């Protein structure tokens, strides 16, 4: 019967383009708002989408509530990293860091509050910023990325104060040990380095790819993501996503995710992680059990 034939949605030029864009989207960064109700996610097209976590996690969550509340174009290149202060969302991509007001972001057509660029040596290509890290105690921001260095920016004045050198290849990710003022950084060279912020010196180096439990030589040695809550550290990349005990520097749990590149965040007892080649955000609870997935 002709009437029974399912209605094929006619796809015009814009619909096809949007569908393709969605298919080839990569989510690089995410950040939970200071109030804990919203999650911002940045993709490879330079867009930032704000999801309502409270709506998605509520008992009467529908398909609609898993869609973004608002989406806007933030950078020209991909949004590689985002962090939230108590009022701002800081996002970084191609060599620049931008600040947005959380309060205004849910409105349409919001503009960035300010933008800064770390002091780079001149090069044909602007080095990207892969990671941002807030250090609340000294109210500063640490940026790291393509130029293999950690830059410290004073959030009060907006000036760049320190440079930490040591990585031999570009830096993928940063994490802060809150109890002792130390910063962890993981890079393409396969090492997780601990930096003492007071002395601006390298304290410890964990070369993850040298441990058998998590090393996956066919994927390379690079460390793609890193998170820590002072005693524990999660890191993954070329080697498998692994939970480390920092003081003894031994791996404890290997997470069951096969694709290499991830973004990982500790949030209370949750581990939020976005696999690189999908439009999903996986949420782990109890350190190993996948609870559900959020989608663009």
């Amino acid at each position, binding site marked *: 019967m002709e*009437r029974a034939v399912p209605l094929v949605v006619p796809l015009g030029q814009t619909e096809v383009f949007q569908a393709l864009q969605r298919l080839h989207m990569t989510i690089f960064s995410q950040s939970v708002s200071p109030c804990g109700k919203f999650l911002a996610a940045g993709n490879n097209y330079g867009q930032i989408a704000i999801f309502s976590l409270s709506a998605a996690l509520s008992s009467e969550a529908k398909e609609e509530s898993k869609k973004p509340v608002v989406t806007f174009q933030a950078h020209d290149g991909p949004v590689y990293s985002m962090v939230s202060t108590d009022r701002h969302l800081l996002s970084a991509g191609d060599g620049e860091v931008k600040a947005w007001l959380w309060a205004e972001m849910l409105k349409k057509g919001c503009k960035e509050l300010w933008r800064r660029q770390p002091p780079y040596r001149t090069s044909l290509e602007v080095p990207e910023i892969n990671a941002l890290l807030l250090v609340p105690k000294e109210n500063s921001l640490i940026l790291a990325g393509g130029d293999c260095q950690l830059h410290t920016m004073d959030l009060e004045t907006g000036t760049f104060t320190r440079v930490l050198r040591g990585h031999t290849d570009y830096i993928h990710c940063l994490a802060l040990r809150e109890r002792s003022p130390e910063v962890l950084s993981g890079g393409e060279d396969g090492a997780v380095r601990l930096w003492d912020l007071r002395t601006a010196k390298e304290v410890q180096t964990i070369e993850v790819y040298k441990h058998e439990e998590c090393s996956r030589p066919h994927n390379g040695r690079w460390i793609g993501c890193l998170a820590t809550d002072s005693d524990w550290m999660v890191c993954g990349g070329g080697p498998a996503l692994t939970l480390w005990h920092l003081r003894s520097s031994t791996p404890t749990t290997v997470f069951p995710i096969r694709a290499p590149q991830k973004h990982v965040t500790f949030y209370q007892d949750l581990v939020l992680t976005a696999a690189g080649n999908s439009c999903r955000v996986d949420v782990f609870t109890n350190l190993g059990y996948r609870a559900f997935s959020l989608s663009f």
Partner: protein
Amino acid sequence: MSSESGKKRKPKVIRSDGAPAEGKRNRSDTEQEGKYYSEEAEVDLRDPGRDYELYKYTCQELQRLMAEIQDLKSRGGKDVAIEIEERRIQSCVHFMTLKKLNRLAHIRLKKGRDQTHEAKQKVDAYHLQLQNLLYEVMHLQKEITKCLEFKSKHEEIDLVSLEEFYKEAPPDISKAEVTMGDPHQQTLARLDWELEQRKRLAEKYRECLSNKEKILKEIEVKKEYLSSLQPRLNSIMQGLAVLPRLECSGTIWAHCNLRLPGSSNSSASASRVPGITVTQAALELLASSDPPASASQSAGTTGMSQGTLAASLPVQEYLFMPFDQAHKQYETARHLPPPLYVLFVQATAYGQACDKTLSVAIEGSVDEAKALFKPPEDSQDDESDSDAEEEQTTKRRRPTLGVQLDDKRKEMLKRHPLSVMLDLKCKDDSVLHLTFYYLMNLNIMTVKAKVTTATELITPISAGDLLSPDSVLSCLYPGDHGKKTPNPANQYQFDKVGILTLSDYVLELGHPYLWVQKLGGLHFPKEQPQQTVIADHSLSASHMETTMKLLKTRVQSRLALHKQFASLEHGIVPVTSDCQYLFPAKVVSHLVKWVTIAHEDYMELHFTKDIVDAGLAGDTNLYYMALIERGTAKLQAAVVLNPGYSSIPPIFQLCLNWKGEKTNSNDDNIRAMEGEVNVCYKELCGPWPSHQLLTNQLQRLCVLLDVYLETESHDDSVEGPKEFPQEKMCLRLFRGPSRMKPFKYNHPQGFFSHR
């Protein structure tokens, strides 16, 4: 005297003769036993003159001795015998000497002969050589005389004089500075000039011949035309006698006849006499009748008697004044059903106002249409009003006769005998023929399309569906695939006669695209079936321009694809020169295969799941498989070609077979490569209207594969050199958290960077 000297010499000679001989013998005895005495060597040492003297002396001695012996014998005595004996011994010695001399003389003779022989041979050789040389000299002399006697053919050619040559010949032939001094070069140049001139003349001759033929033909045609005009003129004359008043056609005859005598020759004389009379008659009539413009108008509306029209037709044709044709078309148009009439009027109007390449015509028999004119209203009433009655009849018939049901189906799908033909000509002389039909009982319009090209195309196998009438217009507007009826009311009609879908009949009837309905002014709302749908001019007008433009771009893009496919099938990616800047000069990966695949096969491929899930793989699309190779690496690309190409880009899904199978689900960089061609396609469009998109995307894939393979990190565990050495210039191999490879090509500098 001589005997004294001979006496003195003799013992001396013997001594001298004996001593060396003895000495030699002694030496040879004591020292060299193997070497023996050689008389021939001795000959060289001795002087023949002396030998001769020795011979004479010996002979004299012998004579003397003989004489003494005789003397002694004749004297007789006792001691004589002893003396004789002594004399005999002496004479024996002399004999020996003589013998020796004799031998020597023999050897000398032999030697002398040898020498003579040798000398003679030499002389013979010299003689032969001399003969040869003489012969050669003679031959050369002959040749020289032959050469001297040679006469070149060019001397017979009558060349233009020198002054004329330098005056007329172009400088590149005459080359005055070279030829002035060198008579040989001069002659060559003059000959060149002669050849050039003769060639030109030959060309001219040929042209003139063809011209002559053409003119002859024209004359022939004109003659024929004039001779055919004669009986018609006669009939007009008769018609003139019958008709008291004549309108516009009279003026046309006047023009015609004023012109004819000039253009024709002998045969015109026959028509001249009546021609003049007609002219006079027409001119007289003109004075009394309306001006021509209004006359033709009144002729269009009121119409003329068939006889005069038929008679004046060739004249109109000849004068390129198709009043009558247009009039006739309008006349026929009156019999068109309303939607086709709307289409006809709008298309004609659009063609006249905006697009001269559009031509409109009506096809089919008017008589059948006239015959239909009355019945349709009854039958429509039948079908629309009395549903209950219909049901009853069908109920009655269904169980009994399937044939009648078939007839009813045919009746239902019957189309109006008249159809409208639109010919849309594109820039490259390819023509899109559209034939619009009206299905009377279904109240929908259908269209059949056909593309003809200016030049014969070699049809590549993979381009099979590109220009087929079935699919060339598919999805002109998104989702408008023309497979089901746009009129919701039809569904109920179909139910009655047991037609499941219209799509089974589409090939025969043509496609009922939505835009066709809109061009015909038919508008069907989607929600509610509406019984009375009236043809609406404004709806048609509002869609005409966009649709025509869409049709044109569709045909052009299809033809462009057609061309590209032809070379893609041979493994050549035909990048045009104005798109060259998008790619590096050296691309190693190359296209190996380009084949069409079925929709079902595409759906079953394991790496196309994302596209299928996203709803981008409808059955109206065309599907292809490309294979790109470099060394051991094979990149499969499944391509979805939307009918709306090139405004909707082709979609690529990749699967790389190299060190295991890599698709977008297990390799980020494959995913990025797909993104590069699928999402960033706008960079690859090339110059408007971006017909080159598909080719550029394929070439881009080749470049991307090069980058992918060359930047792949080398596995340290494997020994040996890399299969693909890095040749592309890259700023960094990896960048960002996703560790992307540098896929973006920067044009003038030629390096690869990250997006």
